């Protein structure tokens, strides 16, 4: 097993490094996506980025440029305060999701690419991370993560109580836009190797585990990040040993970690209840 790990680190250092950076950044940003109850933003932006990559491939533009341009448009649209309008944000997200998923497949089908390209576009493949992919991920995601952690206070206050935040001088529209912009950048840069499903998994499953296990924001974020790292390394290792697709193996690992957390929490509560009842009987 140790030999397998050594081989894995030797053969796929780029995949491991990319997985670690993507899972960490997405886990941190994803906690706020769940708290703001806009989980659907994650999958929609992933689909928008995939559509951008497809357009980029079809028109010979760099995938990141295609993904980022389209994601930026979606982010600007999403930062509009839909709460006060007839169409809720979720419905707008749904429309964008349907349009971009369908457009991505149409563009690829007319571009002369085969089924393999379509699958790679939708599911990505972390194990095939190239040096160029890793550089892009490092140059984009690391600054995004530092920015997010540096300005976590105004972002949290904006999300926590928008109206009150306005009264204490926080420019809520700006912080909201910056958050979605950071999310858009992350998804755009990570989409090519991680694919829509794995990005959505990192944005939702690991943060959900954090929220399940911890009661303080810093611990929620830490568990979310650790869960992302654990599922990435375990998933890559599993896919390597069993010769199965890497991104799906990571996603299953993340869900397994979440279910384990759920079971641990259930057992903990059961034990606490039994203890209380025994005390009451005595």
């Amino acid at each position, binding site marked *: 097993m140790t030999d397998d790990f050594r081989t894995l680190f030797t053969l796929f250092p780029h995949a491991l490094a990319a997985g670690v950076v993507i899972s960490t950044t997405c886990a941190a940003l994803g906690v706020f996506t769940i708290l703001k109850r806009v989980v659907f933003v994650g999958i929609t932006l992933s689909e928008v980025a995939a559509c951008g990559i497809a357009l980029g491939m079809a028109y010979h533009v760099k995938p990141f440029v295609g993904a980022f341009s389209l994601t930026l448009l979606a982010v600007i649209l999403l930062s509009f305060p839909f709460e006060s309008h007839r169409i809720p944000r979720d419905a707008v997200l749904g429309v964008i999701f349907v349009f971009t998923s369908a457009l991505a497949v149409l563009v690829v089908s007319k571009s002369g690419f085969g089924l393999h390209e379509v699958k790679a576009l939708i599911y990505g493949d972390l194990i095939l991370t190239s040096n160029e992919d890793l550089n892009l991920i490092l140059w984009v995601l690391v600054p995004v993560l530092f920015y997010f952690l540096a300005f976590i206070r105004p972002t949290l206050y904006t999300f926590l109580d928008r109206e*009150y935040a306005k009264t204490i001088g926080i420019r809520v529209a700006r912080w909201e836009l910056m958050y979605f912009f950071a999310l858009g950048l992350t998804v755009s840069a990570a989409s090519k190797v991680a694919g829509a499903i794995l990005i959505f998994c990192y944005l939702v499953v690991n943060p959900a585990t954090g929220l399940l296990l911890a009661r*303080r924001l810093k611990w929620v974020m830490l568990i979310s990040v650790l869960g992302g790292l654990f599922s990435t390394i375990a998933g890559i290792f599993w896919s390597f040993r069993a010769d199965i697709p890497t991104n799906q193996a990571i996603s299953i690992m993340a869900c397994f970690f979440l279910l384990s957390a759920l079971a641990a929490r259930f057992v903990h509560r059961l034990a606490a209840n039994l203890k209380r009842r025994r005390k009451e009987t005595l």
Partner: protein
Amino acid sequence: MSMEMGGGAPNRSIIAIDHLFVSYDKADILHDVSLEIPEGVFLPLVGPNGSGKTTLLRAILGLIKPRKGKIETALERSEFGYVPQNRAIDPLYPVTTRQILLMGLYPKTGPWRRLGNFEKERVHGVMEDLQLTEHADKTFGELSGGTKQKALIGRALVSDPQVLVLDEPTSDLDEKSGREVLGRLLNLSKNHGKTVLIAHHGVETVKHLATRLCLVKHGTVLLVDAEGMLGEQIP
């Protein structure tokens, strides 16, 4: 429409509302409201649900733009303390009562600055005053309705604001706790010179506390003597 503090010379006006119209979806919520609010007054805004009390408070705070008219104040935005209804915060957020209170110090701390000793003592003092100390490390979602309300009041108080604007602050409190909170707010006005504007749906609990009441009905505002309201019912 201007008001005086009971008996003495009028205090300087710190908020002047001049022919204010606020609309939502083309319907006027506030209709030609003019009001001068002096410094240090305890002013309950009473009226039935949907009469425009919350809209008036939000307009004073600058949260909504008037369609017509203006609101003038000599104060900075940071000198206002706002207590929204406790449904404003999603209980899903893993933030403690202490963190909720710290939010009120953001104008001083900004995105990065850590709390100084003075600010820590201020937070501690407010928590003790509002009997929140034992709940300091509980998350907002774990608190009862009344304690949530107290935490939001504490958040407004930590920055020591000149004007306190409260939207139904006793709606989730039992009668005794509600009276306690109102008494505390009255004390802030009487003994510390704070201006307290409080939206309240029931007149009975507040008419004994203030010299004047602001009746809000169908988007219009009327200042009345609280004594004259004794025994009367708000339509």
